[in-house]
């Protein structure tokens, strides 16, 4: 018998799970759609938030697509791609993370019937790519440049972009307030590409209108020793010394040991140690600095020494804060107190310690370089401030983007409708299968206005039809019509100042198409068994899916 049997070919390790073919493609599409559905409700000004517990029990309440995707902890290989595009959109543009995921899911959803009907996925991919190129060209064409305007006008326009982003967030009620703040902050740091120059500090308590912008640096009072309260708390035009050394009485060398054979020398050793620290302190004082900041500890001795000489000091300042002070005040962080030349000292107009809510803050304002800004956020709860910070981050990114590529497109789904119309028209000119595919791509783009309506509780079909009618007008005057979130009708987004930077849309379309094409091009998944023996329920579930996913070649692996 044994000789009769075909030797079994074992290619893969035991427990490996593969699935392939059309069924696999469809199951991937289903998974992606499911993830898209989670995010669906967060889109737009009437979008809702998600409350997510993570493994450690901490909780995030967010409306930001990228944040939610990250916290969902997705393991499905195809769905993971969505997480990646959301992340890439976040790091590239900073906003539109929900849009990109929704678009990708929608593209795939539209592709599903074709796949079921047996269309080769490569055909789909090719058409989708063409469509995306056309769409991006159209977006570019429709974009309106804000270049060449005066600074004031430009500021106003940027604020509009920021307000559009913020309107979907928790702080939407105060969007104008924050939009101006964000624009001021971004303008303050200039063209420098260092985002970390904008600091966001969170102070629980107060209401969000109490948030304020410091044209300089602000950070929380650091841990202080006795004597700190006796230091002056306000200076005008002080010199600022930035250090990265400890000003503490301590052993200079860790592993050194002093051996004394003559007890009378004892005092000299003690004195020597004291002299070292006094020497350092003297040098700080000599430099003429009135504010001494150090990344490392400033001990009680130094605190009292400075207090005696009317100098303000703060030890254990966080590195990023110190760097910001350096950038703002124009100083350099010193690692030694020797040879402090005046050039390394920074300065600012006003230094003050101020009470903000329950905390005291060190505030440096009116810095000469003006290259930094700090937003101090106030809010009723920690979660609230966290979310506000994320929202402001989005707004900051948007404004920065808009400053660089200064073109904007009308939001509120207007641009999506217009591109969709254009693609539909274009598809009519194509003979062949591609016509269908591009048409479905165009249909998928309509998901944005549709979802905006759904989230606001409007009749999506009704609004969409109105929009289609407007956009179909030959004159082109309806091109900037989008969903009017307040009345449930349609309105000219451009005239209502619902603006987005063009780059957001371009990047979103690009990334979403890429992701969709990537998923469409996969026809086999090979899943290696978990490296550890801990094959929990998850693994068992995965096996189940693998079996369901149809394996064409009937290769036995057991």
């Amino acid at each position, binding site marked *: 018998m044994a000789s009769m049997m075909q030797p079994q070919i074992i290619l893969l390790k035991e427990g490996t799970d593969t699935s392939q073919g059309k069924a696999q493609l469809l199951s991937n599409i*289903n998974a992606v759609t499911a993830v898209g559905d989670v995010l669906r409700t967060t889109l737009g000004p009437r979008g*809702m938030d998600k409350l997510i517990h993570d*493994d450690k029990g901490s909780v995030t309440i967010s409306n930001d697509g990228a944040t939610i995707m990250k916290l969902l902890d997705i*393991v499905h290989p195809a769905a993971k791609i969505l997480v990646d595009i959301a992340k890439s959109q976040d790091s590239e543009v900073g906003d539109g993370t929900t849009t990109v995921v929704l678009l990708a899911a929608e593209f795939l959803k539209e592709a599903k019937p074709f796949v079921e009907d047996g269309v080769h996925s490569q055909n789909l991919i090719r058409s989708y790519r063409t469509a995306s190129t056309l769409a991006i060209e159209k977006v570019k064409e429709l974009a309106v440049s804000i270049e060449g305007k005066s600074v004031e006008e430009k500021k106003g326009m940027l604020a509009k972009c920021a307000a559009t982003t913020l309107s979907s967030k928790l702080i939407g009620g105060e969007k104008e307030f924050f939009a101006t703040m964000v624009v001021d902050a971004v303008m303050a740091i200039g063209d420098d590409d260092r985002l970390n120059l904008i600091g966001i500090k969170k102070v629980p308590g107060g*209401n969000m209108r109490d948030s304020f912008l410091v044209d300089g640096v602000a950070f929380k009072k650091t841990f202080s020793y006795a004597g700190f309260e006796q230091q002056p708390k306000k200076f005008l035009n002080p010199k600022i010394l930035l250090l990265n050394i400890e000003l503490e009485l301590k052993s*200079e060398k860790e592993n050194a040991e002093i051996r004394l054979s003559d007890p009378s020398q*004892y005092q000299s050793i003690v004195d020597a140690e004291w002299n070292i620290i006094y020497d350092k302190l003297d040098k700080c004082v000599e430099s003429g600095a009135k504010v001494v900041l150090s990344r490392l500890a400033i001990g009680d001795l130094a605190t*009292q020494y400075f207090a005696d000489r009317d100098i303000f000091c703060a030890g254990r300042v966080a590195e990023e804060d110190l760097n910001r002070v350096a950038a703002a005040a124009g100083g350099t962080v010193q690692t030694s107190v020797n040879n402090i030349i005046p050039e390394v000292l920074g300065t600012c107009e006003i230094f003050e310690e101020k009470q903000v809510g329950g905390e005291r803050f060190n505030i440096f304002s009116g810095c000469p370089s003006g290259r930094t800004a700090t937003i101090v956020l106030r809010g009723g709860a920690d979660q609230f401030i966290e979310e506000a910070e994320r929202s402001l981050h989005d707004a900051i990114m948007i404004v920065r983007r808009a400053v660089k590529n200064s073109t904007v497109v009308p939001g509120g789904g207007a641009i999506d409708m217009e591109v969709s119309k254009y693609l539909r028209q274009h598809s009519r000119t194509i003979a062949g299968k591609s016509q269908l595919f591009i048409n479905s791509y165009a249909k998928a783009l309509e998901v944005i206005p549709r979802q905006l309506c759904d989230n606001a509780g409007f009749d999506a079909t009704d609004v969409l039809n109105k929009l289609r009618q407007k956009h179909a007008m030959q004159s082109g005057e309806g091109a900037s019509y989008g969903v009017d979130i307040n009345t449930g009708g349609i309105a000219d987004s451009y005239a209502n100042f619902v603006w987005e930077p063009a780059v957001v849309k371009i990047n979103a379309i690009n990334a979403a198409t890429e992701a969709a094409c990537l998923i469409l091009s996969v026809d086999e998944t090979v899943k290696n068994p978990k490296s550890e023996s801990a094959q929990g329920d998850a693994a068992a579930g995965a096996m189940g*899916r693998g079996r369901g996913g149809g394996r064409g070649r009937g290769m036995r692996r057991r």
Partner: protein
Amino acid sequence: MALAFDEFGRPFIILREQDQKTRLRGIDAQKANIAAGKAVARILRSSLGPKGMDKMLQGPDGDVTITNDGATILEQMDVDNQIAKLMVELSRSQDYEIGDGTTGVVVMAGALLEQAERQLDRGIHPIRIAEGYEMASRVAVEHLERISQKFEFDVNNYEPLVQTCMTTLSSKIVNRCKRSLAEIAVKAVLAVADLERRDVNLDLIKVEGKVGGNLEDTELIYGILVDKDMSHPQMPKQIEDAHIAILTCPFEPPKPKTKHKVDIDTVEKFETLRKQEQQYFDEMVQKCKDVGATLVICQWGFDDEANHLLMHRNLPAVRWVGGVELELIAIATGGRIVPRFQELTPEKLGKAGMVREKSFGTTKERMLYIEHCANSKAVTIFIRGGNKMMIEETKRSIHDALCVARNLIRNKSIVFGGGAAEIACSLAVDAAADKYPGVEQYAIRAFAEALDSVPMALAENSGLQPIETLSAVKSQQLKENIPFYGIDCNDVGTNDMREQNVFETLIGKQQQILLATQVVKMILKIDDVISNSEY
């Protein structure tokens, strides 16, 4: 929790440990969240107002807290639910910013949530409710500004401040002597206030408590109180016109920080070492004497030998004084903290008119009073009371009163308490509602109704007929167009809050409304709760 199924009805594994997660979404999530928020508010509701009840909370270690302060109750309750935690943070931020009205803000938020639930049942989109609330809160805050009154006070005429502090204290357990406590609080704040900059650093007011005596014995000390006694029992108990050396170095032979070893191989060397040590003590004490110090306050301990020497040289000393207290002493006496004996100079000494040690009752416990200081910018409120819980609660009440006084110094505007401000706002918001087209109008009306819940709770807690009383007051306000009528909680016979002298700070009230609206918006905006099932 399964997000999707394949064609055979098996779930996809999309999330890590998917089956251990639960998901609540849509209207269910909102309802669950609102219920949690309301539950928290319900607990606090009975604590509101002068006739509000206290809560007894037992901590995990068996320690008991009895309090009426909203922020403290919520803090100690250790809630687990996330939405409930938001409510806790809500009252905490009111505490940070204003220091008073921590119960009111939660009751307000609870009422807003309750109203929101009703609107949700009507099918109004949660975000539109939240937006309506926001519009309404703006109307209410503006109205408060309008009905607020400014009153003048200065260092000599602080009666209005006392009245306002009394309103705060009247809801606390200490209301028996609210008058004296309010005076203490106001005097303390005025003593440390910088009236020009309108800034009060509450850190300069130290609140000390000691079990024993009566609440009436609570006093304000223009100086510092240290829970320490002289290092040697035979040292003088009272020093007049004291020159104080404030040291952060121990009366011990100095030690190098670097690892060191003294090799002693002969008897002579040992003798020298011993002599040297003695000499150190001698020098230290002499140094203090030389600069003219009549009292030494030290952050660290002394060697017994040093202690003896100090006694001998007639130099009273206090040891193991904490860093914060040391700093306060330095500020109060105008002295400098000296880290080293070599640095002692006469200028660095602090000066106090009187330093005395006082013992209490029959116990051996003593405390050190440092009074008549050179710089009276630091004061101490010394609370006496029958038991520890009482003292703790008094501390919290005093804190509230201090915050109120501080807020008044920052902003002189007041509104009338006893629910009068809320009723006035409710009327204003209700009237404004009709101007807004759209669904928000309903939310604005709901907001007005929610505002009524504070006076309602006040009336309820005072044993009055809530609906009857409220409607009577409301019509009175509307008829006479005067926003002073509130709930007569103490049954004085008039509900004119001007006559009753029930004031609250304007910023406190505004903050309450804004914060409550903010948190309610956050809760309403959540439509999806994804959690591990054990939560």
